[in-house]
């Protein structure tokens, strides 16, 4: 799971000289929320989001309608974009979770993906959410079980062993440390083509494990 497999290639981009009105138009037309700003050769010079296009009222000399119109029509992306040095970016061969970490720590909604300073893609919160959905099998039919198990080696193997013994297949899985309980681990499994009761009885038969949710 690397950034290059989940990013959007060929993102919609804009030039620094583009007027902010046109940029808004393009964002509406293509339903995107982030515009990497590039100069010749797709080299990144900045980033525009809906956030950056909000003009603080203090920037305006007065609230006169004509004044606002004039002010807005003269604005270009250069004036409002986040400058290159402040844009958090990533590279195509970075692990997905690394990219996610960069997004959360920087509190940004997207990362332009660069190769030699050339924009080759963009990865956004939405891409991350899509992958979370996929990771937990959100798009397939099946039984979803959450099992709480002791936090030690070999526990997950008991579950997968029991399931494969029955000839069933695990479609998706994910594990996190139980919230506020470092001694336990919560594991989510999606199993396909199996009656809920059968799965439940198999999982319950494992010692020390607790099935906390089945749906």
């Amino acid at each position, binding site marked *: 799971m690397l950034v290059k497999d989940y990013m*959007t*290639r*060929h993102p919609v*981009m804009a030039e620094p000289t583009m007027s902010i009105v046109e940029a808004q138009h393009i964002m509406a*037309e*293509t339903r*995107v929320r982030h515009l990497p700003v590039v100069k010749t*050769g797709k080299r990144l010079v900045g980033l525009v989001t809906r956030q950056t296009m909000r003009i603080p009222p203090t920037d305006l000399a007065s609230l006169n309608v004509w004044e606002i119109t004039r002010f807005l029509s003269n604005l270009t992306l250069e004036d409002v974009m986040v400058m290159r040095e402040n844009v958090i970016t990533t590279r195509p061969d970075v692990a997905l979770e690394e990219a996610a970490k960069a997004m959360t720590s920087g509190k940004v909604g997207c990362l332009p993906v660069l190769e*030699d300073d050339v924009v080759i893609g963009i990865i956004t919160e939405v891409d991350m959410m899509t992958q979370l959905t996929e990771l937990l099998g959100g798009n397939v039919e099946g039984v979803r079980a959450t099992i709480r198990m002791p936090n030690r080696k070999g526990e997950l193997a008991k579950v997968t062993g029991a399931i494969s013994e029955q000839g069933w297949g695990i479609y998706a899985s994910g594990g996190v440390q139980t919230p506020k309980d470092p001694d336990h681990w919560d594991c989510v499994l999606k199993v396909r083509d199996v009656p809920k009761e059968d799965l439940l009885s198999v999982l319950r038969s494992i010692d020390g494990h607790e099935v906390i949710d089945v749906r």
Partner: protein
Amino acid sequence: MTTMERTHAPILKVRNAAISYETRHTDVEAVRDVSFDVHRAETFGVVGESGCGKSTVAFGIVDFLGPNGKIVGGSIKFQGQELVGRSQDELRKLRGDQISMVYQDPMQALNPSVTIGDQLAEVLTVHRGIPKPEAWQKSIDMLDRVYMPDSANVMKRYPHQISGGQQQRVVIAMALLNNPALLIMDEPTTALDVTVEAVVLDLIEDLKRDFDTGIVYITHDLGVVARVCNYVGVMYAGEMVEVGSVESIYANPMHPYTQGLMRCVPKLGATKESSILYPIRGRVPAPQDRPKGACIFAPRCDYATDRCHNEKPQLRQLETGHSARCFYSETIDAGTWEPPAGLVPEFEADVGQEDGREPIIRLSEVKTYYEQESKSLLSLVGAGEKRYVKAVDDVSLEVPPNKTLGIVGESGCGKSTLAKTIIGLETPRDGKAQFLGFDLTVPVSGRDVKLIEELQMVFQNPDSTMNPSYSVGHQIGRPLRRFNVVPKDQVRDEVVRLLNAVRLDGSYYKRLPRQLSGGEKQRVGIARAFASRPDLVLCDEPVSALDVSVQAAVLNLLLEIQRDYGTTMMFIAHDLSVVRFFSDYVAVMYLGHIVEIGPAEAIYAPPYQPYTEALLSAVPIPDPTAEQKHIRLHGTVPSALDPPSGCPFHTRCPRRDLLPDGGKICEEQIPQWQYNSEEHRIFCHIPLEELRKIEPVVTSD
């Protein structure tokens, strides 16, 4: 091909685009009311006959229309940005950075005086400012990506030093170097051999997936569309008449024009006995002659009513993602279509079939070599070793009267040299060639007039074989006078009769070649070939330069004339579906040798010679549901100057491993003919029992 779920807005959005060319008199509206979307990682195919505005649409997207072309209406949005009305400067930047183009002829896209490496690296140094050594390395990587063999060395070569398929790969690599969001391909494989075409089409498919590029693919070939496209727009006379996914358009064409196109192309495996090609009557109107305020297809449509002639239909959605520009799409059932009277000739059941008659032409071990200048000093005094291009080597074949022999093979395999040898333009070095008791090894200048009269030819390109300053009547009349076919005072009547036979009326008598369309010129060429009532006609790619609907008409015409006159034909073509449709016997040639020959149905079914099998699996089939074996030949046809030892095909043969030692024998010994039946023989070391076990190449539901 599955259609992916679309989460993104389209890369290219064309709405009601209209494009005109300025001329001295008035503006000519080449394209009007064209709308379509191209999404990432999808191919949108634009199909139609020539003159329908396909290329104009492609050029219009980037406003590459030349000084007299202009976009007069509608909108073309690329990644949300309006392209119509942009300055050339802005567009040039976009073309370099985000939109790339690949054209039909790779030689025109490459600079002949600059090495391939310099041309590729320039894209990166200019557009991205990457230093030269790094750009060079990236170019090599990209050449590897397009499966270029020996890429590091190819970088140092000039365009003319690599083959056509490789040139096209260089152009594709160049187009992809900047990682474009949109790729426009205008007939990128039309100039390539079928085996090379198959490899390039596979490549396009791979690249689309890996680079997420949206592709606009322009072609006239319905088979290619079925193989590479996800969505198709059918263009007719500058308008898009039907748009939909490739599956739904092929399964259920809704516009009468699309239905007509489908009936024009022979399916692989169709024969003249089992099926008929139905041309579309009439022809594509010139832009100024297009009906105004009416359905543009109405004059050629079998379903047209008064409403079609008085009201212009709009493109309307009939199913999800499938629209057509026709009032009656719901009521028209293509399955119950009946050809109007006179569209196709009525063939009676074959009468007078006299099997077992003596072959009319018989070649045995014919060799035609071209002498090659040796570069050694000795050759200056005539003592150098002579080298030969073995264009035709050991060819033996015979054709019974009133039958057709099709000859297929890649370019450079000696098909045309064989035809030239028979017609007398080349003199064979060795072997026997008999035709009606005449000796065919004599060059044409020494031949009896009677022989020339009985042996005529239809050429590929009617433009270059007709004298532009003589009228049609004069040109057809010339063989009549030369051979005294009819008395002098009846020549004119006979010409008119011949014109009628090729479905042109007497008014064409006085026309000059430039006043004719491509299909009409080819008909005149056919009339001229048949003027002397020959016994054998050689057709060298007679339909490959023609549009599909015209191609169907010309093929029907040839069939009809053949039945009427009892003429024997040799039909050279690279299109295996057409050859199968047209021929009784087929010979497959490779590097000057015939590698398989026999009745047509035997060639297209196992046992195959491995080369035939590879050819068949490369043919694009106009049916997206057909299953086709995936065999791709690597490398190019070896030079005929220095052919491989043993079996000529051993360097590329995909079936060599069926023999012990990985086919060592293929390199050492020339194979013997193996007879599958009396008429069907295969030139291969692999035993027939093994070859018989091979599955058929094409299976369709």
